[in-house]
């Protein structure tokens, strides 16, 4: 009996430890996840960890009619100091603007026209690409520029019209170098995929709504290859941004400066 009692005690003790571990794990699982971690995980879905190149196609619609199309070739690389991305953007189409360049480094934005050899500093408000702001077309690490607050979990329809459970984050700008003052963001609770975002001006009015969709394997993981942007004032004004031709692309840090723009001629 005693021989039997010992294993029973042992089993009981093991069960007690397992229960305690399970309870502890359960407690950990149900603790509110860190909002900044959710945002960083969502950033990692959108943004490859190493320097990369991508082609961005912008299709603009007004009242369901296509009114404009632009194609851009973008090279992005994170700044080792700030962690924020720097981007060289070359216009591929339309033909009249082909090979014009933009250099974006936070709010530092330069436009270069090879015909006139003119490098012009632009303000964030100067839009060159229709509805999409210059910041929309390049990679941005939101977790570097915004303080996230988890305001709850919601069921919502994603870009593929599937109901998803999502963390709702409220992002407040902590850096002056941002395009939007405040952002509401919905992030898939299981996959960390960004689902939807609403971008607000300092005045509080809605500037645009974005749906992230068409997730496909790109540069090592599933990433959104299409963003649908709906204007905040005029919902019939829609821009579809498509990302294609992803590739790793290492470029020197020295290329991300104004004086290099006349020399930039990518392969």
């Amino acid at each position, binding site marked *: 009996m005693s021989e039997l009692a010992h294993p029973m005690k042992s089993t009981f003790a093991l069960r007690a430890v397992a229960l305690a571990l399970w309870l502890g794990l359960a407690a950990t699982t149900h603790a509110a996840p860190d909002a900044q971690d959710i945002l960083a995980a969502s950033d990692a879905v959108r943004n490859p960890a190493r320097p990369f190149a991508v082609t961005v196609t912008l299709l603009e619609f007004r009242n369901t009619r296509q009114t404009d199309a632009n194609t851009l070739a973008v090279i992005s690389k994170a700044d080792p100091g700030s962690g924020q991305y720097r981007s060289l953007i070359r216009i591929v189409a339309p033909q009249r603007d082909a090979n014009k360049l933009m250099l974006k480094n936070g709010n530092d934005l330069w436009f270069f026209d090879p015909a006139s050899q003119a490098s012009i*500093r632009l303000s964030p408000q100067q839009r060159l690409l229709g509805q999409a702001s210059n910041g929309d077309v390049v990679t941005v690490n939101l977790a570097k520029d915004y303080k996230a607050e988890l305001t709850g979990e919601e069921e919502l329809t994603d870009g593929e019209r599937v109901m998803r459970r999502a963390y709702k984050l409220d992002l407040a700008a902590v850096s002056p170098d941002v395009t939007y003052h405040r952002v509401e963001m919905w992030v898939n609770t299981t996959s960390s995929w960004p689902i939807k975002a609403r971008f607000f001006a300092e005045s509080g009015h809605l500037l645009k709504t974005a749906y992230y969709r068409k997730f496909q394997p790109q540069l090592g993981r599933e990433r959104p290859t299409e963003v649908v942007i709906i204007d905040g004032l005029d919902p019939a004004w829609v821009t579809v941004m498509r990302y294609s031709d992803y590739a790793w692309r290492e470029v020197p840090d020295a290329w991300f400066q104004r004086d290099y723009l006349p020399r930039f001629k990518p392969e």
Partner: protein
Amino acid sequence: MRFITCSLCLALYWNASAQAADPPAELPDELDALSLADKAPTETAQPAQNWRVFVEGAIGRNELRDAAPRVNTQRLSIDLRFDARLAPGLRAVLSDRVDLAHSNGVPPAENVNTLREAYLSWAPGDHQVIDLGRVNVRNGAAMGFNPTDWFKENALRSVVTPDPAVLRENRQGTVVLQGQQLWRSGALTATFSPELARAPDPDAFALDAGATNPSNRWLLAGSYKFSNAVNPQLLIYGGADTPTQLGLNVSALAGDAVVVFGEFSAGKGRSLVAQALGLAETESQQQRAAAGLTYTTGFNLSFTAEAQYNSAAPDRSQWDALDPVARLGVLTTADALQDLPVRRAWFFHATWKDLLLRRLDLSAFVRLDSETDSRDQWLEARYHWDHADLSVQWQGFSGDSGSVFGSIPQRQAVEVALRYYF
């Protein structure tokens, strides 16, 4: 000026009305936008072409101040730019424009070819670049007057519009050997422009090296990025017949909607009047400067105000002392050198993209001479399709008969142009 003001006010009112208009009876749902995206065309993006070619046909009319008959003009322009990688690290650029012009004026318009650029660029490493050939070497942070853009002198062969951006494009580059060294936060560019000929060549298809390379000249331009906001450029320029000049370019953001900029040069030189009239004059210290800001509204109207200064140009009393022929000589010389013809001036420029309707852009400027209160005004409306542009431009000079812009024989000019991109 009144015409421009009225047009802008009307456009502002119209745009504001359009923005304040009632929303559609039934706003589309966000999911409708997704349906729209589902149906959006999916063709693969084509790589950028190495060349850009357009043909432009234009008709115009010039009105002179005196009782002379109006001058009708016709122009056909062919514009080519080729920019390609020949091999890893080796790039070739060719940029040329032919303007075939006809007019009933005296003297009649002439056909002109402008070889803007023709050079090879070699990058032996990621941080070095060497250029050899005719290059449009251009510096300057300002919009209407660029004191540090020294190679602009005598670079224009054909002027089809007074738009400052186009003037910087449609000019002959200078033949140079230049190298650039890059660092993580800075760059240094050294340029040598050798003497190739002493006098300009007016022949229609001349390479015109005498205009762009009349003497041995050099330029050192260095920039350092102290922060994202501060990235000044310091320049030193000189040559065999050119006293050393110092230059500075700065620009910075002032909020989300404003860019401020400043450009400055200083060095010895002769006054504009002495250069125009061939007067013997000892070189003295001269300063040139342009400073201003560009403000962009939420509806994509960008407005630039720029103050301009040129110590080498005549002030009011010096201008008044000149006879009409001498005044015209000063203006002609300032035009050729692309220099500011008066001591102090203001430049206001506006660009409004998608004005009233999508793809319609409006651009305008006013040059205001602060010495004699005269004006040079320009307005352009441009509508663009995928492969074509239709533009209408108007330029007018106003002021008293003895004033700076009032001394220009032309009163106003209008041109309609159709451009097709291949």
